[in-house]
């Protein structure tokens, strides 16, 4: 459904995206991961026909995303990364505008979404909180039930409850065969919804893999608190990858083999286990190192 072939855009400052290639079959939910400034939004802007590639091309349903931009929009729903609406109107007026420009007649799904996301559409947009604006954007992207939905950091600004509702809505649309591309900088955010994901760094695709394989490869850090300092010292001798110890606490890295981790800890008095929040580079340390080494 979505094909990117050697998509390259070099900005005057040398930044950009380079030879981005992947394809998303119909009905797949595809995650697009990368740290800030990696080139996620730039890639998505190509798919929306906002910028012209320097080299390569992207197609959606066989149509060129630059040349056939307007035609492709019939099939697409889009949530931009930076939410900014037109001023001087409320949420409903905005949705009516976008719906009207699409020639959309059916409003029942739109109203259902508004109800489920629980927000007041009568609020003037400039008085809305970030999360509320995000909800309006989500409704605008989903309301016409398009074949392809492209979401740039869809959950930013949503509270955990709303994130869950959002995931439900994505799953329902997926059931209907909708194709998704969603960007994020956190793996935990997309592992719940996506079938496959690409990781991008400095404008280059590092890996494209299915979520289960990525889950195997992600490296997680656990903060384990033991009953005594000796135990914390003793764990260093175990086959586990102990990153550091302080007093009775140890920081242990686990990649894929959780059973070994649990078995090893069975011999100890464990007071507490905490999972360490990490950024994408730390989670996929080996991918990033592999990329960094040859250069």
């Amino acid at each position, binding site marked *: 459904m979505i094909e990117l072939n050697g998509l390259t855009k070099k900005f005057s400052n040398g930044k950009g995206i380079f030879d981005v290639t992947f394809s998303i079959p119909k009905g797949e939910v595809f995650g697009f991961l990368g740290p800030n400034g990696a080139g996620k939004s730039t890639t998505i*802007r190509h798919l*929306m*026909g*906002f*910028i*012209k590639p320097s080299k390569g091309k992207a197609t959606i349903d066989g149509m060129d995303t630059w040349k056939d*931009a*307007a*035609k492709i*929009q*019939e099939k*697409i*729903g*889009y949530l*931009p990364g*930076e*939410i*900014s*609406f*037109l*001023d*001087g*109107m409320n949420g409903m*007026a*905005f949705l009516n*505008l*976008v719906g*009207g*420009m*699409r*020639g959309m007649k059916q409003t029942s799904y739109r109203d259902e979404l508004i109800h489920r996301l629980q927000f007041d559409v009568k609020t003037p947009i400039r008085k809305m909180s970030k999360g509320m604006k995000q909800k309006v954007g989500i409704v*605008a992207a989903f309301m016409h039930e398009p074949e392809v939905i492209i979401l740039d950091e869809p959950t930013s600004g949503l509270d955990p409850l709303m994130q869950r509702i959002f995931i439900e809505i994505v799953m329902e649309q997926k059931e209907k065969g909708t194709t998704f591309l969603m960007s994020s900088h956190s793996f935990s955010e997309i592992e719940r919804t996506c079938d496959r994901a690409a990781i991008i760094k400095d404008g280059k695709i590092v890996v494209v893999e299915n979520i289960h394989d990525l889950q195997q490869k992600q490296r997680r850090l656990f903060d384990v608190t033991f009953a005594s300092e000796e135990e914390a010292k003793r764990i260093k001798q175990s086959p586990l990858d102990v990153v550091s110890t302080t007093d009775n606490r140890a920081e242990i890295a686990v990649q894929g083999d959780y059973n070994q981790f649990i078995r090893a800890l069975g011999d100890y008095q464990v007071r507490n286990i905490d999972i360490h929040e990490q950024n994408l580079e730390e989670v996929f340390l080996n991918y990033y190192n592999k990329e960094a080494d040859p250069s």
Partner: protein
Amino acid sequence: MNMTLYAKMLKVHAKSISSYAIGSALYLLLIIGIYPSIADAPGLNDLMESMPESFLAAFGMEGGFQHVSDFIAGEYYGLLYVVILSIFCLMTASQLMARHIDRGSMAYILATPNSRKKIAITQAIVLITGLLIIGITTALAGVIGTEVLIEDKPFEAMTFLNVNLVGILLFYVISGYSFLFSSLLNDERQALGLSGLLTIVFYGMDLIGKMSDKFDWMVHLSLFSTFRPVEIARGTVDVWPMITFLFLLGTVLYGVAILVFSKRDLPL
């Protein structure tokens, strides 16, 4: 053109369009209102003769006023009309394109199955509609105002309407280059600044050229040389060459703006 976008945009800009239209009409009525007291004052034409020739020339007032229409052409169309319509055209043009590109709201407009050309044409028509509403309201205020406020003073309705027609076309061109800057640039303030600067340079060149013989070549480079309200009101110039020139130039500018917008990268 996309009707939904057109209607919404017109609604968003309705307040500013109507306030400029009402403001312009009221100023004009005020000028018409003071005409009788000035025309009857015996010293006026003597006073004007005592002023330096070049100063009068700059405002198109040489030779005194014979008619209501030249009086309002000189007093209103010479300066205030230009200021009011310039501000409207520059502000609205920068808001219709550059602001949406700058803030990113253009992304939502383009995320609908409408080509960029269609979107730009719609926004251009919003601007032209606003200009026409203000221009026509002013012209009507002039015709009705002289009818009601002034008794048996000669008023040349035909030449007065010509002043308005050429005026509107002049601003068709000014709004045209403002719209071009607005479609070309990513920054609203930059678009506003550049079109404002160009307008001031044109106006300044016209003013200096008229006041000083040494710089009279400047007049020919200024867009404002096409708009001589007093001469048009007196019927001493043929307006058709200007009308044709301004109409063609404005249309080319809008055309280029629409083309540029549909071909360029947008940082949305």
